[in-house]
Structure formats: structure tokens, C-alpha cells
């Protein structure tokens, strides 16, 4: 069975004062039908650029320089804008971190939800309005009829994110890309939204690409995980493997630097230093300067994604030498 989405060798660059610089490089991953894939990594590592590349929604100074994005076997890179528009919002839908900036403040909620139904499904005004109300009920909004007639600013953050999910669900997408869908929300509201996403996924056999920097959210929601660092995939595998047998020293560092509720107070381990900026990427492994195991080889040559097991890979020379990292 081939994957629903297959990203290979994806390199996306932005025009800066020093020419085109790659924000993500040689990114590879696949999402199977009905699967939730988590993409984790620190601010600026290229999570949003990856999702915007898939949606072909890069700002005008950005472009996909290399690679392929296959959705149900169809190549999205280089696809005409009109064809891409048929896929966007229909087969692939996206929700963003800040719901307010992605809702139009001058249109009523019902109209905004109905819009894609009119475009993609050819529903008339009456039909799309009714469907919008149904969708609001689906995402658990009380008084759905009234809320459909409200403007976005009258809703709370959690309700707005529900509306965004309703919009994304309108055309029954096969893939939902959720870019930090709960980061701007409080934990109790986050719990409601994650619950809703899980329920919708199960009901509709949808695949989800979930971008987050919260490892708790990953553990709870994802089947598989891609860990990114400075524009590259550094590790990927099943969620259990990533949490039980993290292999890349960055993943190991990340997992041990989070404070955990159940732990008694003890000193946190931390990763020294900072992420390199895209202007001055080191030649070898991008994590080498912060890595406790770095050798000369790491400084000189960049490792490729090496297999730890069949479906677990890490971009680290330690895998090469010992089979598994220390």
C-alpha cells in the first residue's frame, strides 16, 4: 500500500539579503492513511515551512527548490495554482496556531465555514448554511445556530479554534495539517481540542500531520514522530521508539530537558548552546556544536538518516558505529 502523502528530498529556500537560503533541506517522510504523524522541533527548525510547502502556501520570497510531494500518488510540486486550489481545503485542510489571524474578522462564522462547501461542493447558500451549523455542532459548539451568526471576535480562543477545525472538516479532508493547533490555548481548553481531534480522526479515517513543540501532545496524539533540527529531519520512528529508545542525541536531550509533573524536584538536564542560524550552517552535523558525543567526523561530514531498526532512523554517526547510539 502506498502512503497517502509522501515527501521526499524536499528543500525549500527563502530569498534573503545573502541570496536564497534553505530553511528546510532534504526532508523525507510519509503519512499513511488514518495515521497521525507528529512533527516536533524547536522554534525555527522548519516545521511550518514544511507544512506550507505541502499546501503550496509559501510567501512570495520562498520556493521549493528540490524534491517531491506525492499526495495519493499525485505530484504536488509544480502543480498549477488552479489544480492546487481544488486540493487545498478539500482533500488537504490546514489549521493554524493563531485562530484569529486565519479567520476573517468581517464575515460571520457560518459564512466562513460555508465558503469551501460552496466552492468545492457547489452547495447553495441555504444548504451551506445548514451544513455549517451541523459542523459547529460536530465540533461541540453550543447554540450552533446563534454562533453561526456571530463574528469571530465575539468568540473565545478555544471556540475560534473549534471553528477553524469546523472549517477544516467541511469537505471531509483526507489529510489534516494542524500547525500548533493548541499552542495558544490553555491546558484545559487544549484537552478539549485534542479530544475533539482524536474523535474526528477515528470517525472519519482521516490522517493528521500534527506540528507541535510539546512532547506531551506528541506522546498523546501521534502514531509516528519526525524530529527536526535546524531544517533537517534528525530522527523518525514510531512514537514508542522515539520515547523509549531515542537515538539522536538531540532527541535524547530534548526528552530529558522537560520538567515532568510526576517527578520530584531534581536538576533538569539541558542542551548547552543554541540552534545555529540558517545564515551560518556548519558543514558537518548541525547538532555537533551542542552534542556531548561529537567527534571530528561529526564536524566534518554530515551523516545521512541511518537505520536504527526497520522503521526507526536517526541522522547520527553513532548509529553507524555501534548500531545504536549511547
Amino acid at each position, binding site marked *: 500500500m502506498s502512503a497517502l502523502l509522501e515527501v521526499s528530498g524536499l528543500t525549500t529556500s527563502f530569498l534573503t539579503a545573502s541570496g536564497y537560503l534553505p530553511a528546510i533541506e532534504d526532508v523525507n517522510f510519509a503519512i499513511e492513511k488514518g495515521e497521525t504523524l507528529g512533527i516536533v522541533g524547536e522554534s525555527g527548525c522548519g516545521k511550518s515551512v514544511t507544512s506550507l510547502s505541502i499546501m503550496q502556501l509559501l510567501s512570495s520570497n520562498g520556493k521549493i527548490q528540490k524534491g517531491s510531494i506525492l499526495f495519493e500518488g499525485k505530484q504536488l510540486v509544480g502543480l498549477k495554482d488552479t489544480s492546487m486550489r481544488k486540493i487545498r481545503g478539500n482533500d488537504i485542510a490546514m489549521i493554524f496556531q493563531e485562530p484569529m489571524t486565519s479567520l476573517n474578522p468581517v464575515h460571520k462564522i457560518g459564512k466562513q465555514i460555508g465558503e469551501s462547501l460552496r466552492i468545492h461542493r457547489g452547495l447553495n447558500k441555504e444548504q451551506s448554511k445548514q451544513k455549517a451549523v451541523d459542523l459547529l455542532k460536530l465540533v461541540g459548539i453550543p447554540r450552533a445556530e446563534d454562533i453561526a451568526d456571530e463574528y469571530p471576535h465575539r468568540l473565545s480562543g478555544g471556540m475560534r479554534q473549534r471553528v477553524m477545525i469546523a472549517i477544516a472538516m467541511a469537505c471531509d479532508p483526507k489529510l489534516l495539517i494542524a500547525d500548533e493547533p493548541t499552542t495558544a490555548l490553555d491546558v*484545559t481548553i487544549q484537552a478539549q481540542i485534542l479530544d475533539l481531534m482524536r474523535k474526528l480522526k477515528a470517525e472519519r479515517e482521516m490522517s493528521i500531520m500534527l506540528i507541535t513543540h510539546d512532547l506531551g501532545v*506528541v506522546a498523546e496524539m501521534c502514531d509516528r514522530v519526525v524530529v527536526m533540527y535546524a531544517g533537517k529531519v534528525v530522527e523518525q520512528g514510531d512514537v514508542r521508539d522515539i520515547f523509549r529508545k531515542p537515538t539522536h542525541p538531540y532527541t535524547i536531550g530534548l526528552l530529558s*530537558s*522537560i520538567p*515532568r*509533573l510526576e517527578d520530584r*524536584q531534581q536538576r533538569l538536564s*539541558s542542551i*548547552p548552546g543554541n540552534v545555529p542560524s540558517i545564515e551560518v550552517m556548519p558543514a558537518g552535523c548541525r547538532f555537533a556544536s551542542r552534542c556531548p558525543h561529537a567527534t571530528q567526523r561529526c564536524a566534518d561530514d554530515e551523516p545521512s538518516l541511518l537505520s536504527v531498526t526497520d522503521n526507526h532512523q536517526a541522522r547520527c554517526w553513532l548509529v553507524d558505529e555501534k548500531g545504536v547510539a549511547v
Partner: protein
Amino acid sequence: MSEALLQVRNLKKHFPIRKGVMRRIAGQVRAVDGVSFEVGAGETFGLVGESGCGKSTAGRSILRLIEPTAGQILFGGKDIRKLRKGQMRLMRREMQIVFQDPYASLNPRYTVRQILEEPMIIHSLFGSPTERQKRVAELLETVGLSASRMDRYPHEFSGGQRQRIGIARALAVDPKLIIADEPVSALDVSVQSQVLNLLDDLQKQLNLSYVFIAHDLSVVKHISDRIGVMYLGQIVELGESDQLYENPLHPYTQALLSAVPVPDPEVRRERIILQGDLPSPANPPKGCYFHPRCKDCMEVCRTQAPEWKEVKPGRFVGCHLYD
């Protein structure tokens, strides 16, 4: 505990809501509505709660960066609400604040040296320029930055480094208490742990007291000796941090703790999903403020505000379940 360094008693801050052309007062936002807690020397008190519950307002009121509406704030036994402007300025030397956004809180036109010298000049400390420079270098070393970078501007530093500069600025005048308002919320986890460890080290070295404000329960639990859980302008539960986590008494604390995702795919915590949204602090519910969302709501909760009680030594809760 001997007499606490900071004692906050029934602190209130209400913001007037003005309406119409006449700007008449049409109501009050009860941002902080009766908050009491103590912080001992060398202790960390964590203030946790969801967005808008009044954490920042409480922190700022304690320093009188905004004027409280009511209540007592005793610092070293002195009621600082009775201090005049000049006396208050002296007092500020002992109580400093670190803000969430490390960028917005540093003047972009000042070099790091100027940023750190400013509070020394205000408080007439380290009189000569050479003494001040020495102190700046010392402070940067303390927070783990190289003194050779003191003549650079904030934008030349990363987020975590800027937060270190913010902490160094707070330390410049040798305070006894630091109110840290979401000091690591804007930082990535790997950098967040660096800053948390730094705060921990500084506390041990300098016997500092912290009021640590944050919405992230794991972070607050990690750093705090004791924790107060806020909801709609009030502290609903207060206790020693491990105990609070192991045996939360207030239904809101229980829901809040259960909502935190566990970073372990093989652990499933039973979750209490709270219904509805946070009510507006301009129009809080009658009775217990939490009752419309409470899974254990009883008749009495709808009409009567619960009393703030010490149910076990050092453990306080405001909930009718413990009447």
C-alpha cells in the same frame, strides 16, 4: 516558618470598565479578587492558572507597578502600600521583576552594558564607571554570558540569552525577592531548562525568594516549594508542591492537573474535561466562581462563596466539599 519575607493579604485589584462619551464607570474587572499568600526567604512560591486569571496583575500589584485596590502587602514586616513614592523607590531595590517577553522588556537602543547599569544608576549603587563595569561583567558571568559581549545590543542575542540579560538586570541591585512573570514561557524546552537551572543556582547562591508566575504546571511544579492555583482572580488552593500534585483537593486543581499531556506514550492519565469557557472577571458567577464548570457542584456552591480554610497544616483550599 519564621516571619515570611513577603506576606500578601487579601490583595485586590479591580479595573474600572468605562463606557460611553462621558467615560462613566460601568463596572469593574475583578482581575485580582482577594489573594493571600506568603513567601519565605530563599523560598519559591509558584502562582499558576489559566490565561486571564490574574497572575500578572497580582505580580504587578505586589510591586505597586500598578496600584492595588485593597489588601496588605508586607515586605520584611513593612506595609509597602503605606510607603510614599520615594520610600517605595528604595524598596524596589529589594523587589525586582523579570518579564515573559525577553525582547520587549529590554530597550533595543541600549547595549547590554547600559541595560544593566541603568538600575544601578537609579539606585546610586556602584558609583564610579569602573566599578559599574566590573559589576556588569560580574552579572553577565553569573547568568552564564560572556562579559566580552556587554557592548552588544539585545537583538544580537538569542531568546534564552535575552532572558538571561533580563535576569541579570533584576540581579543588578541585589534584590531579596524576584517576581518572575512567565520567565520561560517564550523559550524552547532545551533553553527553558537552562534558564530554570540558572534560577535555581542563583537562589541557592544568593538566598533569593521567588514568586514564580506561569501557566505551565510542570514548570511551576518543578521550580516551586509551594504553589497557589488561581482561578478568576482568586487562589482556590495552596499547598506544598509535591502534595498539591499528589493529592489535589479543589476540583479545578484536579481538572488542571489531569489536562496536562503526559510525555510518555504508554501512560494514559484519566482526564477531567472541563465544560465551557472561563467566565469573565467583569461578571463572575454567584457563589463559588468555579461552580458552573465544576463536576462536583452542590446546591450551596451556586449561592455561597466558599471560605478559605486551612484543611491540613500548610494546605489551604476554598471549596464547599471541605466544609
